[in-house]
């Protein structure tokens, strides 16, 4: 009985729902702050100390806003796509190790499962644009689909490289291998794979230069143009959680996961500290990239992924295989 309550608490409070929501909103603040500093601005400043509560305030404000549904939109699809998107995003984070070697859910081949679930999110994005039956959102959804086909393969290949090096498809074992077998984070061996992972996660998170599906100046907000109020709030939260997932998975696969030097007896706390440090690093890197580029056109982005990033990731994959069979 006690165990069930303990498990329930860990799912709902820490490191489950509540922690994930709060921490992902904090990551949004950091991203906005870094982006603003790159552009010589100050970023959020008023709400809370240094504007740290701004994402929370935005979220709560959106929740209280009027919820408008277009008349010809698909009723159930329009209602369920934000809910499902949030659920799916939350599901993916449960696989990310936060306070130990494994996440809340850990299975023998969870790397594949996590890739599968995170792919679902993008299909939901396409459906969300399709269900809202607006010209802008339809074009946004088409672009989201095109871009998705382009970046998903390099994304998965870069993840698999880490799996190959650890000779396992379980996230827990990959983290274990980095700390106990190689004694080195995989970014040292797989630096090109890490770069490919970052580039394709920029596209996955729809950030500049790959914010094509929601290109503000062309399509208003792309696939999410018809969503307002609570539904938009859920989508925004889901996007933030996705950023947490991408940075958490990147930390687990390439930066040694949440494991680091720890004080005896206080391991979970120290591991949480290392988790936060590593995810902050990745999010800051992504925020920094955002400030450096102009937006690609959809054909340019697709060209870039198919002609440059995909061959590069194949080469990195072959290099990893060679590394594992002949050298290590």
């Amino acid at each position, binding site marked *: 009985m006690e165990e069930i309550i303990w498990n329930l608490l860990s799912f709902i409070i820490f490191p489950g729902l509540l922690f994930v929501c709060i921490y992902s909103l904090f990551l949004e603040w950091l991203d906005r702050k870094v982006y603003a500093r790159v*552009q010589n*601005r100050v970023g959020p400043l008023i709400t809370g100390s240094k504007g740290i509560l701004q994402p929370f305030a935005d979220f709560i404000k959106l929740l209280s806003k009027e919820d408008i549904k277009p008349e010809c939109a698909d009723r159930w699809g329009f209602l369920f796509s934000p809910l499902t998107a949030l659920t799916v995003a939350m599901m993916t984070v449960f696989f990310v190790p936060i306070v130990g070697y494994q996440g809340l859910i850990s299975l023998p081949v969870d790397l594949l499962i996590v890739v599968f679930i995170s792919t679902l999110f993008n299909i939901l994005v396409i459906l969300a644009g399709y269900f809202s039956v607006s010209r802008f959102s339809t074009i946004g959804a088409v672009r989201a689909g095109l871009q998705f086909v382009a970046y998903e393969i390099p994304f998965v290949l870069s993840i698999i490289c880490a799996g190959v090096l650890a000779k396992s498809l379980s996230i827990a074992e990959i983290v274990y291998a980095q700390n106990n077998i190689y004694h080195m984070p995989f970014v040292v061996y797989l630096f090109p794979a890490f770069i490919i992972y970052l580039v394709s996660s920029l596209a996955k998170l729809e950030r500049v230069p790959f914010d094509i599906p929601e*290109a503000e*100046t062309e399509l208003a907000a792309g696939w999410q143009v018809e969503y307002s109020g609570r539904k938009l709030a859920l989508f925004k939260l889901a996007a933030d959680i996705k950023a947490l997932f991408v940075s958490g998975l990147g930390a687990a696969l390439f930066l040694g996961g949440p494991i680091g030097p720890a004080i005896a007896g206080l391991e979970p706390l120290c591991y949480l500290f290392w988790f936060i440090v590593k995810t902050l690093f990745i999010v800051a890197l992504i925020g920094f990239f955002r400030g450096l580029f*102009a937006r690609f056109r*959809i054909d340019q982005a697709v060209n870039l992924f198919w002609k440059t990033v995909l061959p590069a990731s194949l080469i990195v994959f072959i290099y990893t295989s060679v590394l594992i069979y002949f050298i290590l």
Partner: protein
Amino acid sequence: MSNDIPEDEILIPLGPQHPALKEPINFMIRAEGEIVVDAQPRIGYVHRGIERLAMERTYLKTAYLVERVCGICSAAHQGTYCMTVEELLDMEIPPRGEYIRTLVWELERLHSHSLWLGVAGHEIGFDTLFMYTWRDRELVMDILEMLSGNRVNYGMNKIGGVRYDVTDEMKNKILKAMDLLEKRFKDYKKKLSEEPTVLGRLVNVGILKKSTAIKLSAVGPTLRASGVKADIRKDDPYGIYDEIPFEVISYDSCDLAARVFVRIDEFFESIKMIRWILNNLPDGPVYKRAPIRIPQGEAICRNEAPRGELMYYIKSDGKSNHPERVKIRTPTLANILSIGEMLKGSYLADVPIIVAGIDPCISCMDRVMVVHEDTGKAEIWTDEKFRDYSRKWYKKNLKWVVEERWKK
């Protein structure tokens, strides 16, 4: 434009409200997938009746009214208006006044071009450029505030000269700011010409060929980016432009990249001109009293505003103290036709940057003119006539309008 289009094409209304447009204008874009097949501009959403108002005010008051035609090139409008009235009076203004007037025009060009560069950056999703150029634009705005007391509508010119003088202290401050601006924009030019994501969005986009540009009577930087060396300051010098050494910038790649670099290079030319003006500023008064009564006649003046050729036509009847007719032709009206041409065959994603590429100022452009379909006669409607017409129309069509609204 009719709504019957082939099945594989969709009709996308761009505007009158759209995030890409800072001002209301409507483009009916027919797209096949991501490719634009045809685009029709529709203007007239922000008609403000300034020409009509000008006819009811004295010459002096109109100078401050025409300044409100455009918030960005306000000094160009006011200066051209004053120039036209001075032409009617056949008077020469003191040289120092002429120099300061030109100084404000060139400062305004700096501020307009840096504003445009930022907007262009924003349209291609490069917000960092937007933030940086708008930060530097503040330097120019501060100078203009120091000179005239205002940041936007400076109220610098009046008939017979300018209202404020430039002191030595101001001169030093301006020269210092010019050094900083030149350094920063050289840096931006270098970065822009090397950054692949930016060049990918600009090179070979929105092509306007030289012959088409001339045929559609494009003006200003849009025309010069199509390889035509046309500049009113050189072709038909007014004021002191025949004394100032400067070059007309033109690029012949005819695309958006050319439009960007023409403006950046003009920025440097303007900085050079400002330095020359400040170093050669003659002594004397800045203003000569002009007679209130304007003799009968009509006059046209042209000015190279930041966006292109600006034309003023004023007719005076010689009896009253307000103009009989003021006609303004802003550069955007001359350029709006070429947008339709540039859009054809481009990607949907390039529409915002192509529209922004001519530096459109929609509210400057809108004038009302009613053309009778059967007789082909054009006439200008007054406020009252317009009001009468709308009253009658609604009386006749009220039932239909209400029904339509209910249907929606």
